[in-house]
């Protein structure tokens, strides 16, 4: 019975999402699709940062891997696009596990630094291996899709991956993740195998980012370029996860909307102009939100709920 309100809100969200394409213009559909893409990535990252308490400023790198997987498979083998997304999921899961291994020995600040360096370094690789990976010119998929296709794909994937996340988190795995976050020492003492769960969290969040990356590439006309996956992307993902806070579907929606929409919206701020409004307003907004709501949107909801129950 406790699930009823949650179920109701889920249905409302689903209903709204189904209705939107009929009301909005194509441009706005692409915007909401973008929110969907970020929803997937932020959801995945939130599993790592929110539930398991590990910081990563490098998930843009996983999006890059996923995006390039789709682009290259499509360019060379004309693979079905949805299949490429599945492949991206798998590849990024494995890569995430691999990255998660050294991450075992690190935490907090050190992990942030390493993942930051990862985010800055990965875009350099296509530049070096330009024959296969297209260099700065990028890689183009063999077919492109409409905004509506991306909208549908993004939100369908979101729904599936959300349910998957829910299943993972409510079980023993989820409890183990939370144990790792709350106290590493206590977790080990109570028999939780730290390495397994920390690495698993990395793998899962990377897989999600990979799918998001595939969709991201498709949303930019099927074009995978290093410049799309710069460090700012990783920063945005982390910001989205932080703004989401911990443990709330609405939080993740807010976080995804924040990073998916705000940069676009702030481009049209007067005075500062198209080019620069983006970063100035966005950056200022990020700083302000963190100062006011250090626990993210979910923290705000928790506080409101506490007030209501008091």
């Amino acid at each position, binding site marked *: 019975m406790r699930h009823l309100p949650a179920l109701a809100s889920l249905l409302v969200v689903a209903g709204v999402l189904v209705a939107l394409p009929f009301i909005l213009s194509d441009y706005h559909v692409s915007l909401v699709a973008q929110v969907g893409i970020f929803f997937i990535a932020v959801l995945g990252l939130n599993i790592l*940062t929110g539930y398991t308490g590990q*910081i990563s*400023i490098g998930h843009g790198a996983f999006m890059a891997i996923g995006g390039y997987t789709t682009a290259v498979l499509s360019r060379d083998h004309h693979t079905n696009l949805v299949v490429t997304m599945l492949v991206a999921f798998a590849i990024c899961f494995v890569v995430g596990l691999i990255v998660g291994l*050294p991450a075992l*020995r*690190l935490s*907090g*600040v*050190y992990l*942030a*630094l*390493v993942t*930051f*360096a*990862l985010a*800055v*370094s*990965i875009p*350099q*690789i296509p*530049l*070096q291996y330009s024959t296969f990976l297209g260099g700065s010119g990028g890689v183009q998929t063999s077919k492109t899709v409409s905004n509506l296709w991306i909208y549908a794909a993004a939100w369908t994937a979101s729904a599936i991956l959300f349910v998957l996340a829910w299943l993972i988190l409510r079980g023993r795995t989820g409890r183990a993740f939370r144990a790792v976050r709350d106290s*590493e*020492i206590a977790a*080990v003492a109570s028999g939780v195998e*730290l390495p397994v769960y920390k690495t698993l969290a990395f793998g899962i969040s990377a897989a999600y980012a990979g799918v998001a990356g595939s969709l991201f590439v498709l949303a930019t006309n099927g074009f995978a370029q290093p410049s799309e996956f710069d*460090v*700012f992307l990783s*920063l945005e993902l*982390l*910001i989205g996860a*932080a703004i989401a806070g911990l443990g709330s579907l609405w939080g993740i929606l807010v976080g995804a909307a924040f990073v998916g929409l705000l940069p676009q919206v702030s481009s049209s701020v007067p005075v*500062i*102009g198209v*080019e*620069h*409004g*983006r*970063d*100035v*307003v*966005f*950056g*200022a*907004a*990020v*700083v302000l939100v*963190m*100062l006011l709501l*250090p*626990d993210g949107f979910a923290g705000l909801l928790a506080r409101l709920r506490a007030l209501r129950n008091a």
Partner: protein
Amino acid sequence: MASAQGSAVAGFRARGAELAPAGAVAVFLVGGAIFLLVGCLQSTTFARLTVEGLASGAVFSSLALALVLVYRASHIVNFAQGELAMLTTYVAYQLIQWGLSYWEAFFATLAIAFVLGTVLQVALIRPVLHRSVIATVIVTVGLFILIDGVVNWIWGGDFKFMPSPFGTASFDVGGVVIPHLYVGMVAVVLACVALVWALFRFTKLGLGMRAAALRPAAAALVGVRVDRMLAVGWGLAAVLGAVAGLMAEPSQLFLSPTLMQSILVYAFAAAVLGGLESPAGAVVGGLTIGVSLSLVVGYVPAISSELQLPFAFAVLLIVLLIKPSGLFGRREVRRV
């Protein structure tokens, strides 16, 4: 006191136990220095690359030292340190446009940087200091984006030209051409580092800052205003960052908003290599990374200049896996 002699010996032993790993580090450094010296004498290319490496390394050292100062004081990494440095470099540019001479602008910029650093700490960092690590990381990340936007807005993203304070002449040392610029870069950075070191070592303010960073609660008990010490620390870090930016600019030829982005990564690697809590480590780490990068890119064909960043990343990763406390850091006990 009966135990006086006893614990003097204990003092020696304790220091001895610390000296063992320190000994390995010393061997590594001395060995490295000898290697470089021999190489420079053997080959002019090697010497040229080494000098270039030292110059860029000096810039990394300055920014790395800024990162270490902030980390020691507040236990957070300021991801916006590089952008802050870039901003202050633009300020210098503007001052020169308004008619000041280079060195007038230089010192004025350092003063402005100090104020900016302290204001940032008070306004943005103090409120989130006791929150989660993520909150402080995000604030500095937001600041990164904000500063980038502001600079682009005020000055635009196109390249700007700033005169080099050291001219374009060079020394000729035994067949090796050493531009005045490189010597100047190293000299300025070392001078600033020395001044900061002297501040910490010999002044009351420096002692207070060190105490506040080591044990804030105990420092407060003796009357140290810990909050103020943290703010001053951030101010000094901003000054060191400004020096890094000002010295980086001439070697990049043009001033643009991306000036410090990759330098930040190298500075991170340098700070971690040296030990995040060790100022000496930051300096040594910076020079090491600078020289290593220069030599590796020069001599190893597989690693072109495009792979410099991944190379720095690899260094960072390896150090963190083998000895997270870095060359000069004390081993932290992680009881798990």
